[in-house]
């Protein structure tokens, strides 16, 4: 099985993780929500797969392009 690393599109804070490890997701699905520039920014996957691991938790600061989750594809 291949792995796909999900990256943060921008610098911000993890506000809410809306999926859990083991969830099946499809291209375009929202897996967590960041807070940045006073807005709620969804993090969407761009491939089908299963969530293997979250590399960040709620409240964590993330930077642009930081790896934040791993998908099994």
């Amino acid at each position: 099985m291949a792995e796909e690393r999900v990256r943060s599109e921008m610098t911000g804070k993890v506000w809410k993780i809306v999926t859990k490890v083991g969830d099946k997701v499809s291209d375009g699905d929202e897996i967590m929500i960041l807070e940045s520039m006073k807005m709620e920014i969804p993090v969407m996957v761009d491939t089908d797969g299963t969530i293997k691991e979250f590399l960040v938790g709620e409240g964590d600061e993330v930077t642009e392009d930081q790896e934040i989750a791993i998908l099994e594809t």
Partner: protein
Amino acid sequence: MSFDAILDDYEKRRDHALGMGGPERVAKIKARGSLNARERIDYLFDSGTFIESGLFATSFIPEAQPSTPTDGKVCGYGRIDGREAAVVSHDLSVKGASSSLTNVKKMRHMRETAIKNGMPLVLLNESSGARIPDTMGAVGTGALGQDNEQFVRRREVPYAAAVLGPAYGTACWFTQLSDFVAMRKGGVLAVSSPKVTEIAIKEKVDPEELGGWKMQSEVTGKVDYATDTDEEAIDLIKKFLSYLPSHHNQRAPVAAVPSGSGDAARKIFDIVPAERQKVYDMRKVVAALSDTDSVFEMKPRFARGATTAFARMNGSTVGFVCSNPLFKAGALDPDACDKVTSFLVLCDSFNIPLVFLTDTPGFLIGLAGEVKKAPGKIMNFMTAMQLCSVPKISIVMRKSYGQAYLNMAGTRNADEMLAWPSADIGFMDPNVAVNVVHGVTYEQDPEKFTQLLDEVSQESSAYDLASIFSSQFVIDPRETRDVIIRLLEVHSRERTGGISKHQLCNWPTTY
């Protein structure tokens, strides 16, 4: 020699030229799932309209003549949806469609004929680069460069390219010069082949990393669309051209208005949430405002904080320039500036009115942006926008701050400035401004923060903007489509027949 004998010889020569690089090489192309150069032309043009130019051209080297039918680039004219176009279709079965002295003359003739007669130039690109040994040495290289307009774009006619395999050298250059690029997955778009690159820099190079579809459509943004097949790529070229006039002194063709157009525009609140911290997909707004199924997005995988798209409104082509809150909150980064600038150049060059939809916290600031020359990119965008002489309608939907307000055709930069009643306009997001101006955060002192927020938010409404006539309209969001259509009727540029001043026509094609 009798005419029978002459015709017999003619047919043999013609069949040889039409046979491309021979059955074996042509079969190889088929085996990899591609169309060959001639099948691509058949797929591009309306049936029976193709007339070939330069069928009997070959290499200038006598001993190479038998092995170079058409010299590896099939050229000619045909019609796309009834409109004339010129084509250069690279034939990989003939010396890797490498560029030579003869076939470069053929390309020149296609370009000059297209420009002279006002028809698009279609480039079906696949080439190993310059032909060796033809271009070797001072005599070979010095023989090039006879055409001092070869790489000049004045955008008299649209250029549309497909990258359908390896595209190095001239095939790469003309892809860079094109207004639209579709790329078949597996193709490689680069200055030189991985082999040449490896030898030059002594490093193993992966073709996909060097110039594959993912890199070109997501990182450089040079490729608009990646496709699985040749047919899909050619279909996209046809679709792209359907939105444009054949040349710069024409208006774009008008299409029939599909039934149901405008229905979704009245349900715009189903797409846009009132709460400013909630995001939504601006592409859905563009679709709702446009004629049914008429949206054609440019560079959809690149710099997604900005959306640029052709669409039709009441049958006529318009160009949408938008911030998209779904990505990076709609903040515009340097890549987004490049994306918007290229679209402004395209629309102004071909007389397409512009509609700006703004919902942005502003330009994305930070170290990464500065390293990518954010200030310069912002000014390129601004300069291009101010030079645009096509009609410009600008609408602030929920928020627009700082320089981004001006770049998105704020105030007198648009022919008409509109705002939804929900719009908030200022030098920066009021939440941020409280912190910057007063040094107070919500976390430190919620009560003080809220009081200061109220103060900072004064005079930032759509009505405040309208009160100083910096916007001419405050509109019910559900009437957005109707108002845009009506205002584009007013701003018809009748004095010039809808033709812009084309002040961006020779703006560089990549930056």
